[in-house]
């Protein structure tokens, strides 16, 4: 065949280089168009598939837009109460130290109501992975302010922009977690560009490898959009993320 091969022929004869992992179900995701949760789900499952440990993994879904993660991640999952995923993961992991246990949590879940469970799972050095989707807002409940909401950012509970003096600064919880000896790896990633997706996936892989090697708790924060909550188009929201979120939540490894 030559360079003039048609797309149809390529599809028939070419190598398949990308398709949905089997560790994602066929169910259509419940997320808004362009929401970063989808990519974060997928790369997490791709890592488990590539490590060949999907059938040894137990995931914890939070309360937040990803509450239904168990409908999409094609593995054993538990749905945890709002903020308590790290405690739930602790309960499982302590009994199945050789299984792969991870939580998947939003910023409201992990950094507001769940701060205590987060900090103490870190402090005990639970040998788990936390995938932390920081979209600076409570997506699920209609775009209320989160502890991670940027200064001046509008949300349904900061309709005139977050007032740092009244409500505090956007919390950098991953940096706080990194200060604890029980945390072996803390990194901040994003998934709104192809290169970043690749990097984020590598980070998640490293996190699960750490768990395999019993190194302690790994946290992978993913700065993501909530285009619905931010009231922007998906494309616009990713630009806004780049310009506004990343200066406050800079990407890269924080620890390990």
């Amino acid at each position: 065949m030559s360079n003039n091969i048609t797309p149809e022929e390529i599809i028939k004869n070419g190598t398949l280089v990308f398709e949905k992992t089997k560790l994602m179900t066929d169910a259509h995701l419940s997320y808004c168009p362009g929401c970063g949760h989808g990519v974060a789900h997928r790369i997490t499952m791709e890592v488990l598939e590539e490590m060949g440990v999907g059938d040894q993994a137990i995931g914890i879904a939070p309360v937040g837009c990803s509450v239904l993660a168990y409908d999409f991640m094609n593995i054993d999952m538990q749905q945890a109460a709002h903020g308590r995923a790290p405690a739930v993961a602790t309960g499982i992991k302590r009994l199945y130290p050789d299984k792969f246990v991870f939580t998947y949590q939003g910023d409201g879940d992990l950094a507001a109501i769940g701060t205590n469970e987060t900090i103490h799972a870190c402090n005990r050095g639970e040998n788990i992975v936390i995938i932390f989707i920081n979209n600076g807002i409570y997506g699920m409940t209609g775009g209320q302010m989160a502890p991670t909401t940027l200064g001046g950012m509008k949300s349904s509970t900061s309709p005139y922009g977050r007032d740092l003096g009244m409500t505090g600064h956007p919390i950098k919880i991953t940096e706080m977690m990194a200060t604890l000896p029980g945390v072996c790896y803390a990194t901040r990633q994003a998934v709104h560009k192809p290169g970043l997706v690749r990097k984020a996936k590598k980070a998640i892989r490293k996190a699960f490898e750490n768990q395999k090697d019993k190194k302690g708790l790994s946290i992978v924060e993913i700065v993501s959009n909530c285009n619905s909550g931010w009231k922007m188009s998906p494309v616009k929201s990713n630009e806004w993320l780049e310009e506004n979120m990343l200066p406050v939540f800079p990407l890269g490894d924080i620890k390990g």
Partner: protein
Amino acid sequence: MAKIRGAIVVDTERCKGCDLCVVACPTNVIALNKEVNGKGYNPAFPKNHEACIACMNCSLVCPDMCITVYRYKPQKESV
């Protein structure tokens, strides 16, 4: 050297027309369809399919796992 060629298949019923793949494609292969799908979204399609280089950018950023990518690497001319 032979140019690598690619092709994509979009699951139009999964697609939510978010436009992210359109923006991510380095060779402007993808566009959104004027017709809506069953869910009322304008799904992506390879408007300029020949330009695809199988870079997977589109599939990497697609939150809804709509895009399958195939690659074709022609016999190297020198062989």
